[in-house]
């Protein structure tokens, strides 16, 4: 049984069990308390992807450990303060190796916003972790610290069990890419460190935008990358650019309004302790279980009455139609005239400010558009080329699209110019097709 067996059947039951819309799955934002500390999120992701944890150990304890180690080996004790200044009195310490970011995960406690954002990445990671660690070229001082750290890890009581995902991936295609890209970065720890934060921001945005675009399409089965057109930040966003206008910020912004109502309803349908399933997966199961139609229908009727909504409900006896009713009702309760309207307004605003701000720009008459700046573009290019030496431009564009980033012909021209400028194109000939793009790592 996919559905919760005790789905409310009466108005009373709805008041008791589903009076509030709660959301704890598939999306990191809540209706309140949404400030992210990306550093801590980094630590959190390291914790999961490296399957390591510091337990209760802290940076101070570790510094003392290093001090003892170094003093035993140094012929001049006075050099320790220099090392201490170099590494332990500022964030440069974290530039040694990604694992050291674990110290930043220490702050994550309870259901803080960082933890929730971390959970979103857990969902993207699923059961992924770095299996083999690459050798990082370190000088002997940093090597000493790194070795000390690995020993320290073994001494602290670490509950090395990985946080397993409490939900199935909503966007399996993106999960695949995320794991693949993370594996790629994991092999290049130096580069990884420089782009880690950008990498997570990029994926939180891709997840958010693609989730929003795919929510309504739950009848079509497993989600695919939906077209979302971006421009480069040095480009003009003229009105004539159909794709940028029609398949850009606007449909995405509109779809944001569905995130909270849809996901909250979805969560309400499932048992609270069960591993949560995405709506499209629920729909797949319901299709096989016509007997659930009655349950859902009763719930829909009760829900409608309890929330005092006006929507004619389906009479077909198809469970999917009732599911559709429920999702629509859930959205209706946040409609403009309803008391709950303000909640969703705030929620959508938070999505934009917390997760999308790096990718949305206001461009005068063209309004808001989705943009990619050069740093993200170089990162995405490197990820898309991945382990290959070079990629044909057409395939690069396809690799972008499979991650949910689309560019129209005009942007593609600018893209080629950009690659030409930073010197990572190889042309086989001057006909546009045979342009190869190489990595810049």
């Amino acid at each position, binding site marked *: 049984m996919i559905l919760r067996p005790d789905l409310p059947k009466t108005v009373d039951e709805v008041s008791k069990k589903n009076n509030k819309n709660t959301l704890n799955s598939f999306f990191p934002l809540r209706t309140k308390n949404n400030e992210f500390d990306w550093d801590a999120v980094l630590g959190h992701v390291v914790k999961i992807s490296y399957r390591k944890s510091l337990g209760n150990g802290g940076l101070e304890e570790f510094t003392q450990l290093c001090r003892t180690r*170094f003093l035993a*080996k*140094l*012929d*001049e004790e*006075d*050099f320790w303060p*220099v090392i201490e*200044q*170099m*590494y332990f*009195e*500022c964030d*440069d310490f974290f*530039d040694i190796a990604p694992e050291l970011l674990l110290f930043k995960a220490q702050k994550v406690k309870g259901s803080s916003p960082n933890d929730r954002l971390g959970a979103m990445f857990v969902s993207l990671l699923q059961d992924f972790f770095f299996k083999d660690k690459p050798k990082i*070229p*370190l*000088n*002997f*001082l*940093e090597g*000493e610290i790194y070795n000390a750290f690995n020993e320290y890890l073994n001494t602290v009581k670490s509950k090395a069990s990985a946080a397993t995902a409490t939900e199935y991936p909503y966007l399996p295609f993106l999960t695949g890419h995320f794991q693949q890209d993370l594996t790629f970065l994991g092999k290049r720890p130096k580069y990884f460190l420089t782009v880690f934060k950008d990498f997570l921001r990029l994926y939180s945005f891709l997840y958010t935008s693609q989730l929003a675009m795919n929510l309504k399409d739950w009848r079509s089965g497993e989600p695919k990358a939906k077209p979302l057109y971006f421009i480069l930040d040095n480009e003009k966003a003229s009105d004539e650019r159909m794709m940028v206008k029609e398949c850009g910020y606007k449909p995405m912004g509109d779809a944001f309004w569905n995130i909270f109502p849809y996901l909250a309803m979805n969560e309400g349908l499932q048992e609270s302790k069960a591993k949560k399933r995405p709506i499209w997966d629920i729909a797949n199961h319901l299709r096989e279980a016509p007997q659930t139609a009655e349950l859902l229908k009763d719930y829909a009727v009760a829900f409608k009455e309890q929330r005092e909504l006006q929507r004619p409900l389906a009479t077909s006896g198809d469970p999917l139609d009732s599911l559709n009713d429920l999702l629509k009702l859930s959205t209706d309760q946040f409609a403009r005239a309803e008391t709950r309207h303000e909640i969703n307004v705030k929620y959508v605003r938070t999505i934009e400010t917390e997760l999308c701000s790096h990718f949305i720009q206001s461009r005068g008459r063209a309004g808001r558009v989705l943009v990619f700046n050069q740093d993200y573009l170089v990162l995405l290019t490197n990820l898309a080329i991945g382990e290959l030496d070079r990629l*044909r431009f*057409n*395939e690069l564009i396809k690799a972008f699209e499979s991650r949910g980033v689309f560019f129209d012909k005009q942007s593609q021209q600018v893209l080629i110019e950009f690659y*030409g*400028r*930073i*010197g*990572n194109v190889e*042309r*086989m*000939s*001057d*006909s*546009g*097709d*045979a342009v190869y793009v190489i990595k*810049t790592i």
Partner: protein
Amino acid sequence: MQTSLSLKEALSVLSKSSPYAVSTERKESMSAGLDVIKSYLYIETDIEKDFYKELSKLSANDKKIIFLCGSSGDGKSEILTKYNHQFSNRVDFHFDATHSFKPQDSAIQTLDKVFTDFNAGNKPLVVGINIGMLGNYAEEGDNIEIKESIKAFLDSEKFPDNHIYLNFEDYPKFELQQSGHSSKFAKRLLQRITAEDGNIIRQYFDKELTLDKPDKRLCANYALLSIEAIQDVIVDLLFKARLIKDQFLTVRALLDFIFHLLAGPGYLQDNLFDHCDNELVSKITEFDPANIRSQLIDKFVLALSLKLPDSDFDDFVTELSKIGIRRGQKAVSYLRLFYLLRKTEFSNNYHQAYKDDFHEQLIDKYSTVWHLHTAYEGSPTKRTAIKTFYKEIVIAAIHKYNNRNAPNLNKGEFFICERNGYQLAAKIDLKIDLKTIENHVNPERCDVSHFKLFFKIGNENKSQNIPANINLLYLMQRIVDGYRPNKHDKNTVVILDEIVQMIADVASKSSTLHVLKGEQRLQVTNVDNENEDYEVSGL
């Protein structure tokens, strides 16, 4: 000369907007006069000879495919149309992009059908195809066998024997020789257009001169282009565009470029350097000699605008007017003419005074270095020359670039990283790897646009290399002279960053580290690798 074409009309064959710019099989000719000119201009190329060789080897039952691939405008269709009639009874021809069976089919679908027919039939096949399209077919086509073969060809791996690939890119249009650089192809074409004898175009030129109202500017341009030294300078510029701007040269682009030089809006020198939508000119404008600043040039510009008397210059201008260039041109226009004429005598040689200002060291330098790498044979003079080049340019530039934020470091010391205001550095050896250079010499297979720099870092046995082109050379030279690249300079700096990364990796393995902060200079040595004892000095 049966028709009454004007010179401009005759030349219009060259333009890319002319119907002659694209070859297809035509039943009727569009103009008898133009047909004659076109066939006069036809130059047989090496790829055509090779193509003919392969084609004539085919027998009617061979299961072979010849792929003639190149860029748009290379002349694939031109070659194919020429042989289509002669061989059509025993070979099937397919011109991709110009042929289709159904208007609604995509090019890929059309190719699928061509290959299916080929498999079903028993005639050999010739396909003229764009290199980009070839790549697309390798990804999206239906015929597995051919897809695999194309992929192998594109990745320079082994492909089946019954597939023959002739690629225009394998027939470079520029050569770099010890004596200098040239483009046999471009030069031949220019000579063909301006030849003194048996040249139908010159006949139109002569006729134009006898008219009551000749197109004077066109005639002046034609006269200028007929000067061989000017042709050489133009070929030089095309070569520069190829090296520096990565501009490829196709036949169609070249023909259109020549047409623009002759029939463009101004005199030849202005057509060559004034910005316009011609793709070659748009690259060449950046080499405009009028932008060079030197004392002599500035003086000339000033004198001309102040109309200071200069009898030598007057004589020079008078001589120019004899070939049709009117008096009173702008200073930039004259400067460009000086530049074009710099390799030849003209009138009282007034222009020779500016010769040195126009001297192009970069290309000469590049050419020397390119030869040192592609034809190194180990003679003592070459040995000294290449070592000096590495020491004074390559390694000096890498050292300066690597240590750009750590100016206090000494020679041989390389910056690794900065930690909270402390700079870490290590001493490592960066040396030329002569042995590998020697082993890499292969004059047959080298691209004029780049070569490889080889060196060894520290005690590593592995030879490291980076691709070098003229832009990198230029950048290195400027870095040695004191220039510091910034982040907008991303071009080619990416390559330097790669070396810096290699160096940092090696340097971090060093057993002695230098730690610098302000005046403080410490040194830590890992004296015993097993027990790891650190010796500190300088405290």
